């Protein structure tokens, strides 16, 4: 059960730029939602608000009825463990192997190392990176890095996947593969919010779409 509810949400970054204005929307449990819009429309900001990486300047963001805007700092880590996050800039760690990158969320969640290793390999297999287990992320191609980032987001089997441009660097074959992967997750009940320019994903998944324009909802 993970419902995300935004009502009257605005975000103004320090410096005075309004990235989002008066957004009201609900993502139901098990839904797959695509967020589209031009560059700078506020897609990433929307996802960051959902994961409590940014706090709204007005309005409220509720995850399972819990108001994220007023959540105390020590509650945030436990909220975030419900999410799998694919970052637009990947945020991979270059000082350790592909495998150890995947172990990070599991270590954080306090998983048994052996059980964790099994899950990490399963996740790598899903994104076709098992043969790169021992490689350093810096030696991976852009697309491989992106797939690693997706694997890290799903390795701890989160209830919600928040993916920011997950297919940005992938060719259409791989993008379609990732699209199918998301569809699979969605089928087993994972709520998915995707921010993307990729029209291919929209065609493939035929999801509900949210279109942003200069920080406002367009429908």
């Amino acid at each position, binding site marked *: 059960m993970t419902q995300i509810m935004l009502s009257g949400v605005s975000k103004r970054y320090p410096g005075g730029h309004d990235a989002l204005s008066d957004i009201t929307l609900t993502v139901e449990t098990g839904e797959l939602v695509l967020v589209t819009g031009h560059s700078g429309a506020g897609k990433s900001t929307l996802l960051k608000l959902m994961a409590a990486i940014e706090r709204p300047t007005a309005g409220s963001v509720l995850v399972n009825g819990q108001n994220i805007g007023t959540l105390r*700092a020590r509650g945030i*880590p436990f909220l975030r463990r419900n999410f799998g996050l694919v*970052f637009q800039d990947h945020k991979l760690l270059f*000082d350790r192997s592909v495998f150890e990158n995947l172990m990070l969320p599991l270590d*954080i969640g306090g998983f*048994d190392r052996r059980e964790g290793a099994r899950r990490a390999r399963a996740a790598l297999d899903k994104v076709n990176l098992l043969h790169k287990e021992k490689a350093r992320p810096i030696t991976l191609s852009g697309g491989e890095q992106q797939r690693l980032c997706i694997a890290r987001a799903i390795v701890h089997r989160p209830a919600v996947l928040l993916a920011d441009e997950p297919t940005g660097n992938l060719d259409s074959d791989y993008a379609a593969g990732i699209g199918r992967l998301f569809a699979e997750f969605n089928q087993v009940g994972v709520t998915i919010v995707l921010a993307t320019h990729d029209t291919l994903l929209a065609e493939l998944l035929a999801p509900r779409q949210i279109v942003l324009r200069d920080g406002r909802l367009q429908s």
Partner: protein
Amino acid sequence: MRAWGSAHYRACAGALRRLAATPLATLLNIVVIGIALALPMAFYVVLENARGMASDYSPQPELSLFLAPEASAADIKVLELRLKNHAGLASYRFVPKAQALEQLKSRAGLGDVAAGLPQNPLPDAFIVAARDSSSAALETLRAEFAAWPKVAEAHVDSDWVRRLDGLISIGRYAVLMLAAVLAFALVAITFNTIRLQILTQRDEIEVAKLIGATDGWIQRPFLYFGALAGAAGGITAWLLTAAGLLVFNNQLKPLAALYGLPLQLSHLNWSDSVYALAIAVVLGWFGAWLSVRRHLSAQNPR
């Protein structure tokens, strides 16, 4: 519970790996911490030894009454009776001048001097222990005895002990202040070391925090690192002090032989050593905690 234990184990192992990853920097750090701790430790050791010697040599302050050279056996009898009836005394004993000379001769190095004397220059004396050994009471007694007939001079034997005690208590304050200043230095050293570590690992910290790590989880390896560095520094300080004592005691040996005194300084006893180590660990941990707190709280969402 097992997962919790193994998480601590991994954090500790991670801290050790970080120590080993930069051996030179680690070594220098530990030496700096060691020196910072060795100074107050050595000072404390010297004080403790001085205190030990002071209490060894004079368990109870006494008064000496030196009699005038012309005092006769009858005079001595009269004085003895007055002492016997004096309410303020715990005990007294008479030391005839012949016995005093014998004692002097038996003292190492002075035998020859005494043997060379044409006649006994020492006076007869009473050695008196008071019931109340506070310095005010002793001073009153001393004045009283000095006024008695045939008493040439009276003085409090423990004056030097009291002076030494005074010096030692001043010394304790000095040690405390020095320790406080150097404790601050130790905290500053670990604070800065951890700050540099955080800078090289800011990506890891940022990502870990983004994907749900608690501050406690992120802090843990740094805190272990601080505590381990403190412990290593504490052990270094102990060894430095031990080395210093070894050299010092060697220098002291001829002097000690000359005076026939057991002038050897001993190191901290076990419980003090454990305390010192514990303090070093806590200070290292605290410096790391300050550093990592400051960094983490700057990363909360706004």
